[in-house]
């Protein structure tokens, strides 16, 4: 069988842990998000019932899985096909956010190779922010005809 050129199939081990990746979402990053997505909700920019403005819940939702994959593999040819998120608590602006994950599954469907990444985010105080699962195609190149 041929394999993804950049992520050899046999090197994808179900159960392997990924990360952590860490970053701080500051006021400027939130303003950039609101501008790019044209979503100037005041709970992100002014105030919220949670005590001050909060990070948009979809900030990097469905992106961190690619970043986690990239900690072990060359993921530049990958493409997201499914994304799932459960929002546990809002993230406060200025907090360090830490995301860890694992390879939960891998499968081949219609000749395309996929990995399933389960991952979760907490803030620097240990507050759980988000739980996620993404299905990622290793590339759009078919490795088999079936």
């Amino acid at each position, binding site marked *: 069988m041929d394999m993804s050129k950049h992520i050899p199939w046999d090197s994808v081990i179900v159960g392997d842990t990924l990360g952590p990746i860490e970053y701080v979402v500051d006021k400027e990053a939130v303003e950039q998000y609101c501008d790019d*997505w044209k979503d100037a909700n005041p709970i992100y920019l002014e105030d919220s019932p949670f005590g001050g403005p909060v990070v948009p*819940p979809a*900030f990097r939702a469905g992106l961190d899985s690619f970043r986690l994959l990239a900690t072990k593999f060359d993921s*530049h*040819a990958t*493409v*997201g096909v499914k994304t799932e998120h459960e929002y546990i608590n809002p993230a406060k602006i200025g907090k360090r956010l830490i995301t860890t994950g694992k390879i939960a599954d891998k499968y081949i469907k219609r000749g395309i190779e996929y990995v399933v990444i389960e991952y979760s985010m907490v803030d620097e105080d240990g507050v759980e922010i988000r739980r996620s699962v993404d299905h990622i195609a290793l*590339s759009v190149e078919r490795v088999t005809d079936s």
Partner: protein
Amino acid sequence: MVAASKDAKVGSEMPPVRKKSYQRSLDETVFMADSIHNNDYTRGKGYAGALTSSYVLCGYMSELLVNFFGPSWLKGGQIALTFINGGVQQGDEITCRGVITERVEEKGGIRLNLDIWMEKGEGVKVAVGKASGIIKA
């Protein structure tokens, strides 16, 4: 159309969110020859052009749900999306929609289950999925 409330009925549609798709990195980054963000490569694979990232589309759907549920979406909201039909390209006009499919009473309020989807152009679905959020009692 209906706003989220404890009286929201099954079958009611959410107020849609309309956007012109934009991903900054598609304008500012030169992608590798076999990246799905490379126009020539994706066209060669049968797509209309470089694919907008799934996280960007997830952000648009999130706006639909935050508008509908309000801040309660950030504590207990759930979303699952599958991307289909060739995805979205830079500058596409997209519309995010949803309809209430179920009301479930649970501790602290009523959970509304929803079918959600994203259309581009003349109604081609490019993302489909489920979402749910809690309306406080």
